[in-house]
């Protein structure tokens, strides 16, 4: 880890002012991803601006009866919050599917959105990586790419976004509240994370001088019919090969409204309105679910080692939709997939 200067932000405005003063400075909240990357010499900030004491730690109802989660609420506290567990169990389930209890106790809500890919080439400073060093090339395209993306890739980067929480936030239609030098703004979840294109070093649409202050959830939480199904190489504490977040609103055996997002397959949580339209108004049965999976994966493209992910994702989508329709969401302690 390189030497750096450390300063504590007094309030949100102070944090924004401090980060604006130095392009090489970084915010630190939980630090569980940033400190790891600093030990690997991948992140080399001049200053760390400690925002962990800012008053962004509450979970409260919004005016429209949704939920506003402060950016500094630890992942555990979100997952176990009564309102989240009861009204947004898909989000609670996704959080508990990720990391370990020790990490979830520290990792912040805002930091979860901003965590970096776990692509091994991004971590390995001895190999080219466009995300780490723009223009140096992508080692994964022709390298060991079993874990890598199958949707929305570019020649410059095939890394995946590692978050579970964000897959549920995408499906729920959350918004991201941010503050900057010129005031506050709200970013719709699909617009927050970027596809790699030619600039994979830019992962979000957050401006360099902006800070995430909260996540807002709309009122509809799909609490009756949901599932978060995560498929990985070991049953606990591993990143997803594929994960699926599903929320359904049923009317009899018909689907009134559907939400469907994939994790572990792209540079951002993958939500496609066309696949949701394929579910809407249809019978909640296997034929419908298969069609939706076909639509969702229609542009999937494999690399040398990850072709298995396309079939795996297809089966996981059908399974997660079945679990949601049956009201039998995937348990995050009993890993048997029912």
């Amino acid at each position: 880890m390189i030497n750096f200067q450390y300063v504590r932000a007094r309030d949100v405005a102070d944090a924004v002012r401090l980060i604006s003063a130095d392009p090489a400075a970084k915010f630190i909240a939980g630090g569980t991803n940033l400190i790891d990357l600093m030990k690997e010499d991948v992140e080399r900030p001049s200053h760390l601006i400690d925002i962990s004491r800012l008053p962004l730690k509450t979970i409260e109802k919004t005016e429209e009866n949704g939920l506003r989660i402060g950016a500094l609420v630890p992942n555990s506290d979100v997952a176990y919050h009564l309102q989240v567990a009861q009204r947004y169990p898909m989000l609670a389930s996704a959080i508990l599917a990720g990391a370990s209890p020790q990490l979830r106790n520290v990792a912040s809500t805002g930091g979860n959105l901003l965590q970096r890919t776990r692509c091994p080439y991004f971590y390995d400073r001895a190999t080219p990586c466009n995300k780490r060093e723009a223009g140096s090339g992508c080692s994964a395209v022709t390298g060991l790419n079993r874990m890598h993306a199958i949707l929305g890739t570019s020649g410059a980067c095939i890394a995946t976004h590692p978050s579970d929480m964000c897959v549920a936030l995408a499906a729920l239609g959350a918004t991201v509240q941010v503050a900057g030098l010129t005031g506050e703004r709200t970013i719709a979840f699909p617009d927050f994370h970027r596809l790699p294109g030619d600039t994979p070093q830019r992962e979000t649409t957050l401006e360099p001088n902006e800070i995430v202050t909260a996540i807002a959830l709309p009122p509809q939480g799909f609490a009756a019919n949901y599932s978060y199904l995560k498929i990985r190489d070991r049953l606990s504490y591993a990143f997803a090969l594929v994960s699926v977040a599903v929320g359904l609103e049923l009317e009899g055996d018909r689907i009134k409204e559907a939400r469907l997002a994939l994790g572990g397959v792209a540079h951002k949580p993958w939500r496609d309105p066309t696949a949701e339209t394929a579910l809407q108004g249809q019978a909640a049965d296997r034929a419908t679910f298969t069609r939706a999976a076909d639509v969702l994966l229609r542009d999937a493209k494999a690399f040398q080692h990850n072709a298995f992910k396309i079939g795996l994702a297809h089966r996981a989508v059908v399974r997660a939709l079945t679990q949601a329709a049956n009201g039998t969401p995937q348990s995050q302690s009993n890993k048997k997939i029912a």
Partner: protein
Amino acid sequence: MSISAKIPLSLTINGAEMNLSVAPWTSLLDLLREHLDLTGTKKGCDHGQCGACTVLVEGRRINSCLTLAVMQDGTRVTTVEGLATDGVLHALQQAFIDHDAFQCGYCTPGQICSAVGLITEGKASSAEEIRELMSGNICRCGAYPNIVGAIQQAMRQS
């Protein structure tokens, strides 16, 4: 502030108040082991993947390798050295002995601190839930069945 400036911080470690001064890049783990000679807390992977460095901050279990000491200013830290009271082992320490819940012992302080946090959280009751919520602690000797047995014993006593 010059780059070499140390930063003052106060911590209550195992009940003792300490006024310290550390470089900002010192992890809580390195502060405990290298500066305070509290070597019960172990450095395994140093990347938050193994759980050997687990300690309790304000009663919550965390990986001490992935937090900066300066960020914990003003908090109460409990390490494995702080669990016994008046020479009497903590229920989990005794349970680990009773169940022979280790082989080499390197992961044990982290396992025990993590299990203290687990019991405080109160989210696990079945063996299955204990296994899942202890998944942040790796035991390469594979003492898992005995670790789960030890935690179940301590849970019955708590």
